[in-house]
């Protein structure tokens, strides 16, 4: 019984090193001037391949005007263990919500 998880792990490792494809995160800008949105991820060996694969996977239906790709490894993410100290302190500070302010009708993109 002890063998099984080890074997599974080893298999996974060989497969990964054989493919040598890194994971890249894809961000699409739906229209010029608006913020980029995370669309998903793709596999690629280099920047150009990442850009092309992102184009082929995520802009087939005219979803975008610009694409960003970045290696997933290069993204620094907060850890869910830190959620309490990171995010809970904001939960009693309703005055930080912008709903207290009137938005002018002339402001676009919000």
């Amino acid at each position, binding site marked *: 019984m002890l063998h099984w998880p080890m074997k599974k792990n080893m298999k996974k490792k060989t497969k990964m090193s054989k*493919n040598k*494809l890194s994971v890249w995160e894809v961000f699409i800008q739906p229209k010029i001037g608006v913020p980029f949105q995370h669309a998903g991820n*793709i*596999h*690629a*060996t*280099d920047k*150009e*391949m990442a850009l*092309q*694969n992102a184009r*082929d*996977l995520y802009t*087939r239906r005219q979803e975008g005007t610009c694409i960003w790709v970045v290696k997933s490894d290069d993204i620094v993410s907060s850890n869910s263990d830190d959620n309490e100290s990171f995010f809970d302190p904001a939960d009693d500070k309703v005055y930080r919500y912008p709903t207290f302010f009137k938005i002018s009708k002339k402001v676009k993109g919000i």
Partner: protein
Amino acid sequence: MERQNLFRYVLSFGDDALINGQRLSQWAYKAPFLEEDIALSNIALDIFGRANLFLDYAASLKENGSTADDLAFKRNEREFTNNLLCEQPNGNFADTMVRQFFLDVFNKLLFEELIVSKDSQLSAISQKSIKETNYHLRHSSNWIIRLGDGTQESHKKVQLAINNLWMFTDELFEMNNNATEMKKQKIGVDCQTLKPEWDKIVNDIFLIATIHKPINEHMATGGRQGIHTEHLGHLLSDMQYLQRAYPDAIW
């Protein structure tokens, strides 16, 4: 007679696209990894779209009510006029990329010229196709560089693919009587004039990819006259199966 000339001219580009598209679509769900699978299918669809435009136009020139589908599914091997390179088997991934690279460079140069055709339909199809072809070329040329300048194994495979397919590259630039007539009427392109630029683009990529340009004494030809390699018949038997087994079936 003139209409017949134009028909044959348009048909040859339709056949090139149809057969190339069919070949690429055979990679669907079999490509080395998911992203490339979708990329190849995307490209195949672009090329099928082009085939549809050319064949639609060709069918309309027949003036007998025939359709693009009739041309695609109800002609025999000897009636297809595509260049031999289009029908060459997919082989391994390098074989497919080399075939596509050679075709993409050629198509880019062809459509750039065909845009100024006196025939407005041909001009419009070229205008649409050139954007797609520029992307296809970006995709295939990057793969040639990646494979050629990659590992020992990938270099070996892409060089072998280039050596094997080189013999089909001269045919792209051949001018038959019909093409010459079309050129004279300012409808068509003189493909021979495209050769130096094709050589230049291909050489530049070969240089970056550390690939040696092959020297072939024998060059294959015959596609435009309907004389094909043994591979086209098999491709057609697969592509035309449904219309042959159930004539005029629709869905």
